[in-house]
């Protein structure tokens, strides 16, 4: 089972038939809408946001059909549910990839490319300069990366020592991972004497599918980011210094950020609708997004305490995240908007927070 099939199985398990195929596709190909973001949050799948960027519907459906044909997934009307056999496969898949949850699409999606360029350029420069070779083409053409590397690159007499420490840091982190991850990662880097490989080339050398090689590489980036900026950052000071060059970025969509600014300046929802000349439903989407990512936002003006309690009770009794069923059990006076606000607040918190770029 390849990475895409395995992770799709995981999505089917988590969504448990409560969202359509489009819901899954938009999550994994990284369509940043309020709906996808709040779904990811609600079903604890935010970490798979944009795990396959740019994946098209056709290819996606092929994989789904493949899973159905293999009886790993059952199709009930237009909904898909993981089968017992699928569960077994999934357990095996996850066991072979012990650190898969270090992938964090929501948090690192925007950071992974800048981080990858930074590593590529910094490491290549270190690899050449520790051998006193200075005549090489930089690994990227990105002026921002050039600027960042220049700012933190060690002085001549420190280079060998920094290379030694960075080697230790990488060695410690990569040793914990299954070999194919570490292998793809080192092959993709350019060093003195060898230019880095493309995904296709790395896949060919290692006998992997191209998409798996690409995923492995991106996974290592996320894994490194996690350890370089998390609680263990002191153990990896050089990596931490690299990550600190990247900029902190907001997980809210740009449009939701504007709405949030207006809210903070004291504008009401009605005023915002007329100021921004947007549909009510769009602004509602923004508020749901904001309720997830801004702990200082109060949902009370939109949902009374009593309504809040009714929604939570219904949610607990029905044991579903399907908005329609919750809504049906509650009656006309409770809108979808209110339900989404309450559920947004009730979802997991650990996956959110600011993302970096």
């Amino acid at each position, binding site marked *: 089972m390849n990475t895409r099939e395995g992770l799709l199985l995981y999505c089917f398990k988590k969504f448990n038939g409560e969202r359509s195929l489009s819901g899954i596709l938009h999550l994994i190909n990284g369509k940043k809408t309020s709906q996808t973001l709040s779904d990811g949050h609600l079903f604890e799948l935010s970490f798979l946001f944009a795990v396959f960027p740019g994946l098209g519907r056709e290819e996606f459906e092929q994989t789904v059909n493949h899973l159905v044909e293999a009886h790993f997934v059952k199709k009930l009307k237009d909904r898909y549910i993981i089968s017992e056999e699928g569960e077994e496969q999934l357990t095996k898949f996850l066991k072979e990839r012990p650190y898969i949850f270090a992938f964090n699409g929501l948090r690192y999606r925007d950071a992974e490319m800048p981080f990858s360029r930074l590593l590529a350029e910094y*490491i290549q420069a270190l690899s050449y300069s520790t051998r*006193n070779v200075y005549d090489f083409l930089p690994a*990227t053409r990105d002026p921002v990366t050039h*600027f960042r590397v220049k700012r933190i690159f060690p002085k001549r007499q420190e280079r060998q020592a920094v*290379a030694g420490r960075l080697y230790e840091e990488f060695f410690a982190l990569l040793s914990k991972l299954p070999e194919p991850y570490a292998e793809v990662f*080192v*092959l993709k880097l350019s060093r003195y004497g060898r230019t880095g490989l493309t995904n*296709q080339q790395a896949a060919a050398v290692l006998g992997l599918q191209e998409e798996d090689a690409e995923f492995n590489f991106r996974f290592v980036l996320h894994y490194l980011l996690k350890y370089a900026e998390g609680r263990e950052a002191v153990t990896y000071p050089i990596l931490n210094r690299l990550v600190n060059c990247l900029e902190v970025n907001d997980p809210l969509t740009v449009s939701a950020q504007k709405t949030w600014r207006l809210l903070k300046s004291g504008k009401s929802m009605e005023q915002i609708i007329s100021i921004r000349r947007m549909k009510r439903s769009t602004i509602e989407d923004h508020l749901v997004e904001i309720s997830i990512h801004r702990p200082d936002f109060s949902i009370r003006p939109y949902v009374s305490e009593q309504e809040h309690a009714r929604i939570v009770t219904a949610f607990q009794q029905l044991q579903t995240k399907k908005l329609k069923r919750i809504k049906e059990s509650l009656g006309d006076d409770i809108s979808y908007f209110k339900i989404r606000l309450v559920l947004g607040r009730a979802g997991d918190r650990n996956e959110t927070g600011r993302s970096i770029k």
Partner: protein
Amino acid sequence: MKLADLLSEKFGYRDFRTGQREVIEDLLMRKDVLAMMPTGTGKSICYQLPGYIFSGSIIVVSPLLSLMEDQVEQLKRSGEKRTVALNSFMDFEEKKRVLHRLSSYRFIYVSPEILENEYVINELKKISVSLFVVDEAHCISQWGHEFRTSYLKLASCRSALGNPPCLALTATATPEVRDDIREKLEMTGCSMHIYQVDRPNIALTVEQYTEHLDKLNRAIGLASTLCGPGILYASTRSWAENLAEHLRQRGTHRVAAYHGGMENEERLLIQKQFLNDELDIICCTNAFGMGINKPNIRFVIHFHMPSAMESYVQEIGRAGRDGKKSLAVMLYCSGDEEIPGMFIDHEFPEEGQVLHCASLPAAGRESFAAMLERFEMNESARRFLVYQFEKEGYFANEGDVLPEDAKKRILQKIRSRKAQKRKKIDEMVEWIKGDFCKRKRIAHIFHEELEERPEQCCSFCRADIELFFQEDSQQQLQTEAPINWQKELKLIFNQESDDQHEELGSSTADPADERQRITH
């Protein structure tokens, strides 16, 4: 200081190559110069050397981001830090930083598009500009094969900067294109330096097939037996991939595809691998090549024909820049001309689209451009339409539709431009099929006299392709060592010395040290 001394001090060359000195001397006399020099003969020295004589900055307009970056990289590597590239891909902060210290740069590379930015022009006006260079100047001519509308504004830009002398550079331009360049850049009394398109060290061969499969087999056969490194040109991305895959299956492993559909990072890796001789063959579209300075390319095979002789000459000109014997092979199968023919249709808006746009009341250039994007119109078609509408004053009269006569003019323009481009394809096909000396014909097309024919001239003159095969067809039997990531990691961070170098008793195992020792 003498020019030759400056040349050796700054660039490490002992002698000027053909034309360089003449162009530079004219520039030093503040003349406008149009120079046509074959690719790979050191056009950039013509303005880089004066950069060390003039007191002000030198602005270099360059059409391709990658080309610009290559040159900036090359200059920086040779120790010239006062070099910068200004383009619209820079983020705002970076741009601001650069613009604030413009006068500290000796060489300022710009894209033609960024010169349309008023803020940039105003900043440039504040500094002293000694020379205005237009690279790939044929892009200014609509008869040129790479017409770019933003080039048309360069003349007004140059005059805004106080009319510094202008150097227009191109590798291939027919006389009519050359006239066009002078006129559009308002280079009055300009001095012309035209050097040969002909590259005597490249043998030109053409092979014709009636069956596509035969041509494919021949391409794969040639690429795997000719002495490399080499380039295989195809006209589509999928064919570039295809050819690379075929070659891999034939056991040629050091091959990769390169085209515009790939991620930037991946393209850069492939390019570097090729430059570092880690790859033998690149299968690519015409996205590959501009600005690539690899001296030892031994062959260029065209699996598909380009759309004009100008492109062809430029593409094969990438071979043999070290002056050694090299080979260009054009593989043609009847019907191949349909592909470039199709591209022409996509390069221009359809008549219906023009009529539709013309019937809409004008509402700003940006929203117009955004609308065209929604039509899924090809980029060059969009650029063309925006430019034509602008020229007809459409955006100046908000709320008005495009007048009838303007509409007719635009449609007429499209027709004549398409016809012109078709003629270029016909010329290419004629060159392929004709019974004549291929070299002589190229000289004729570019209005040159062929002084002498090299021994290995062309397929009509019976050039011997066998001479270009690998000497002993020792196909590199590549037994890839299994990957050991721990060892790789050591190599990356220069950590291998502890357990290996000590055994050797010195640090000479490091090739870098070796090299230094030799030079000392």
